[in-house]
């Protein structure tokens, strides 16, 4: 650097000095941000550790004890728990009563293992709530799009409404409906569904706002009314993106309905919480395996479908 500086003209030197000043200020800002972040992180960690039931350093040595407790008595136990086969360790306790949970269909010859049935329940919760979200999000999104609705007030109202639906804690909706309808899958469907309306509605109206308006203009020119313009010009364009977002949402909803299940919404989440809480290691492993496989399968299937629907765009999220 210093050798080149000698050969610079007066203007060049001024520019270089200015650059050094800017760089120094930038470094100062970076240092300040990093410092603030470090302080925030440090105090957050201290606070988290203080308000936790067990302290991090005290619990850490026992961390793997717990992981060890999760090992079943033999390698086949997990599979017996998964398929509801009788266990050789059965002693009358809940821990090994795998065949108890069988769900018999068509008389007594054919059964669905308990956890598969519960998984199906969770998947149905996710699918039905995605459907609810899709239908209402679809109906609302056109009213929030700048290029279709001229009234600022209407757009503002619809957008805020969707924002509230999105930000309202799912657990409260579930809790409220659980108080009215009693615990079970339906409060979970309401909760996840209502959240999905807001989430999908937002993504949908952004798609609509990016739609090509030429077709709409053509229809407007021949005197089509608002519904005809939306139905024939916008919907065919945006439908693939809508479907793609709905699939992405389905992936998220499978996880969400598992979590809602764990706080009383039924399905596999509840089974998992109970079996971890009671220390039933084989059951826990069976559920985790089933849940893991299902989530991977749903993700893969939906990624494949989305790639078919809209191509590489489907992976563009979080930006």
């Amino acid at each position, binding site marked *: 650097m210093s050798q080149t500086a000698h050969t610079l003209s007066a203007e060049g030197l001024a520019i270089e000095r200015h650059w050094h000043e800017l760089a120094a200020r930038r470094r100062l800002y970076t240092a300040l941000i990093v410092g603030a*972040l470090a302080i*925030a*992180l440090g105090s*957050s*960690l201290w*606070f*988290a*550790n203080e*308000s*936790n*039931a*067990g302290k*991090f350093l005290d*619990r850490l040595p*026992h*961390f793997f004890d717990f*992981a060890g407790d999760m090992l079943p008595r033999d390698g086949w136990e997990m599979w017996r728990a998964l398929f509801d086969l009788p266990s050789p360790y059965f002693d009358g306790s809940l821990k090994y009563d795998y065949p108890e949970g069988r769900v018999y269909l068509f008389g007594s010859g054919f059964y669905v293992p308990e956890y598969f049935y519960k998984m199906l*329940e969770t998947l*149905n919760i996710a*699918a*039905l709530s995605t*459907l609810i979200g899709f239908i209402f999000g679809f109906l609302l999104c056109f009213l929030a799009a700048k290029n279709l609705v001229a009234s600022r007030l209407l757009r503002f109202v619809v957008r805020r409404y969707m*924002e509230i639906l999105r*930000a*309202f*804690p*799912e*657990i*409260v909706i579930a*809790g*409220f409906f*659980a*108080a*009215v*309808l*009693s615990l*079970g*899958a*339906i409060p979970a*469907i309401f909760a996840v569904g209502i959240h999905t309306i807001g989430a999908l509605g937002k993504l949908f109206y952004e798609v609509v706002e990016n739609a090509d308006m030429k077709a709409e203009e053509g229809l407007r020119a021949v005197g089509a009314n608002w519904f005809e313009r939306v139905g024939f010009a916008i919907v065919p364009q945006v439908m693939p993106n809508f479907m793609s977002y709905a699939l992405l949402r389905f992936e998220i909803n499978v*996880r*969400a309905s*598992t*979590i*809602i299940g*764990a*706080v009383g919404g039924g399905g596999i989440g509840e089974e*998992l*919480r109970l079996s*971890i809480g009671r220390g039933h290691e084989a059951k826990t492993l069976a559920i*985790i395996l089933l*849940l*893991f496989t299902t*989530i*991977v399968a749903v*993700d893969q299937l939906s990624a494949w479908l989305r790639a078919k629907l809209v191509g590489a765009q489907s*992976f563009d*999220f*979080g*930006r």
Partner: protein
Amino acid sequence: MTLLSAAQLSEIESRYPDVFHQPLLKRSLPLLIVLGTLLYVAYCWWFFAIGTVIAGGQWDRAEIYARQWYSYDLRPTIRFSGDDAKVTWPRFSPLGDNPNPDWLVQDGRKVTVDFGSAGRIVADAKLVEIEHRGEKLTVVVEPTGAKPQGELPAWATLREDEVKADFGFAGEVRIMPERVSLSRRFLGWPNFLFDPRSPFWGKPLTEVAGLIVSGDRIKPEMSNAALAFDNIWNNSQWQHGDVWTKLLQTIVMAFVGTLFASFVALPLAFIAARNITPSFLANQATKRFFDFLRSVDMLIWALFFTRAFGPGPLAGISAIFFTDTGTLGKVYSETLENIDDKQREGVRSVGASPVVVQRYGVAPQVLPVFLSQALYFWESNTRSATIIGAVGAGGIGLKLWEAMRTNSNWSNVAYMVLLILIVVFIFDNISNALRRRLMEGSAGR
């Protein structure tokens, strides 16, 4: 404007066969999708027994619970024994130990309760007169039960020995032999700052401010300001201190979890990106590791760490950290694989070392995107941290769940929901503003 002739029409039709003569399957696809969806809904209707559950729901309770979000009721009971009438209040009434509201007046044996514009009742041991929006009903109380005189209006019901009059929002009256139990409802959240045990309770805000600024010490060991703060913080009904601590836990969980996740995901993403690390094995191993972290659901991590660390925010932080390392790692490595290779080539061509190539050839392109993605996940984790809290992983979730389970604390639920909405709204805006600036900055580069 000219009309198309038949010949022109058929000419257009033959020019665009793929528009006018689509295969049957393609034409009927929307219909099939709609039919399939309807079938699926019918199946779900049966699977969850939705019809039975909704019909069996206690929808009248829904209205009561919804009211409790923004109002509260007071439940005095009037007991008659001999010539004496006695008004009793439940313990921990929001009106304190000696309630004497102006809507309930006792004059000897006669008690008058005013329900505002909805009406009023006058209770005398053997005779209760109800006035409901101008309509009058007299109920004679006999040892065998309450007997309404004349025809029962729509707002009153008789069940066994009990007459119930419904004043809508304003409350209700239940007349039984020996006693009349009342419920009188008011808008608002009672005792939001000070509970009845506090010396500041019931005083107007100006007086409280005066006491804090220049009053004599109420308790000699602490100043009035400290006492007021302590009373608010430990308010027995609203539990401000606990609620705010739990809310802070939720915020901290999302913040620390996302921050750690992005720190760990960053170097791993460089290993996972196939254009940065040219080793198939390393790429695949890292990517499958990300998939594993992501697919073992946040719930499983939360339950697992709650067992390991005990309930509290440490479990929540760890759960968010594990899940998001997977998600952010996947997103980061995809971003890295889509970078423009020219800058790297330029830096490499002047003989820079591999680390310097990443620093000046790759980082300037991806860092704004990375930061923006981290911010997005920080914001969305603030929301999901609420719910994993309910399984014991710390934060406000569990508190919410407990408040809802008792079915009587809906105003506390409303308070917490309001706080959560405000926090989510603020973070949403901060994150959006920062992200917009980041993206504009990187687009202009």
